[in-house]
């Protein structure tokens, strides 16, 4: 049976929506194997002293759900999600701290998992519910339509990006850690990255999460406009290169030589390299400026993550083909 981690990133909502979220998770018809609450509060508290939480923790134990309360490092929720993404679970169900899933959401989302599925989301509803029936869920339509998850989803549909809370295949795509701490567009970039890797993203009916949009607290409680602008720029650059295979070779001369053997196999490459005499390309500094985090193309980090035993050449194949 696949292992599911439920990850909740929280900030400033100890006594507002977070207890509702935890209660909803505890009462799922399909329970996660583990729940981790990533506490990103400026002034984190020991919630074991709070009666409400004491009961939550006891119920988790009674229901056999492993749980941890981890203190996050205040770098933004993308860092939190990346921690969850790399903890060795097969699936991660990320639930926002103001998004209250109905009891069957995890069961419904999980029922759609398959080898070719990267992520599954349901409706994320805030009353009054808008009519979203015409939305395509395509990344190219993101500026001209409401998010498909904001309305009632009546039938399963393939999309290119997901929003807010969803179940995703862990460990196959990294969050963009080059985003600022507001992590604007983080889930769009992440799920679109899964889509680009060839996984299907689904929105499915009868998996409603109620989004209690709360202006107080929240993992994105940051108002500096330049941070949003910075992240938006990264998002726009990713879209700009969406029909290309972006290659960032921030390695040694030998790495470039090995990579050059697989270059002919890469479709429509856009190259950023350190040794343009071996692999012609734009500079690494330009890649950093355009995409924020270039670690997603770090083949050594990937080989470490994959516990790689095969050749460097084949690691490049896995990364880029």
């Amino acid at each position, binding site marked *: 049976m696949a292992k599911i981690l439920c990850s909740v990133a929280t900030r400033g909502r100890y006594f507002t929506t977070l207890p509702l979220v935890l209660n909803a998770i505890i009462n799922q018809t399909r329970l996660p194997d583990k729940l981790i609450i990533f506490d990103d509060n400026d002034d984190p508290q020991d919630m074991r002293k709070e009666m409400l939480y004491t009961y939550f923790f006891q119920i988790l134990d009674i229901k056999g759900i492993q749980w941890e309360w981890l203190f996050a490092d205040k770098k933004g929720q993308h860092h939190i999600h990346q921690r969850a993404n790399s903890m060795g679970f097969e699936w991660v169900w990320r639930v926002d701290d103001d998004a209250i899933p109905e009891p069957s959401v995890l069961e419904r989302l999980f029922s759609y998992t398959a080898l070719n599925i990267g992520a599954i989301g349901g409706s994320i509803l805030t009353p009054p519910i808008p009519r979203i029936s015409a939305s395509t869920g395509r990344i190219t339509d993101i500026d001209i339509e409401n998010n498909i998850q904001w309305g009632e989803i009546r039938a399963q549909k393939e999309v290119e990006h997901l929003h807010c809370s969803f179940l995703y295949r862990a460990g196959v795509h990294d969050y963009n850690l080059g985003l600022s701490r507001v992590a604007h567009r983080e889930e769009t970039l992440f799920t679109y990255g899964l889509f680009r890797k060839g996984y299907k993203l689904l929105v499915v009916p009868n998996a409603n999460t109620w989004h209690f949009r709360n202006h107080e607290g929240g993992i994105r409680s940051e108002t500096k406009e330049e941070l949003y602008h910075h992240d938006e720029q990264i998002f726009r650059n990713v879209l700009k290169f969406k029909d290309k295979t972006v290659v960032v070779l921030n390695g*040694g*001369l*030998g790495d470039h*030589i*090995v990579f*050059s*053997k697989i270059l002919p196999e890469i479709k429509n490459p856009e190259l950023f390299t350190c040794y343009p*005499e*071996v692999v012609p390309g734009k500079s690494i500094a330009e890649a950093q400026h355009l995409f924020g985090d270039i670690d997603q193309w770090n083949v*050594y*980090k990937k*080989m*470490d993550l994959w516990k*790689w*035993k*095969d*050749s*460097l050449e084949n*690691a490049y194949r896995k990364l880029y083909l």
Partner: protein
Amino acid sequence: MIIISPYTKKLISGKQNPKNYPFWRELIALIDEPIIQIGIEGEEQLVPDFRKNLPLAELILLLKECRTWVSCDSFFQHLAWSEGKPGIVLWSVSDPLIFGHPENINLLKSRNNLAKNQFLWWEFVPHDAETFVFPTIVLEKLACG
């Protein structure tokens, strides 16, 4: 003529890179044919003909001219592989199954010496002469080649 590429990239710490073969002088003393050393400014000169900072195009020309080559695990083994010229690679802590090429003669004393994590910086791996094969073994392979 044989090319030797004795050194890999210097570590930031200034310590010796654990991939650098420690017995070059002993090996060179055993070889009875012309040797060209390639490398960069600042590396120790081991033979009279030391060609520093050659551009890739010139290295490729040299590869075409040489009988064979001997190198530590550096970019040079990849360049030679890319040019279709097999040679000998002297391994210690890095894994030839990952970073090597089967077309070469990959001399690794023991897989027990391989660094546990092959994908981090080599800064934290100590240099240990015991992890390398002896020059006589290299010479045997050179004779075969």
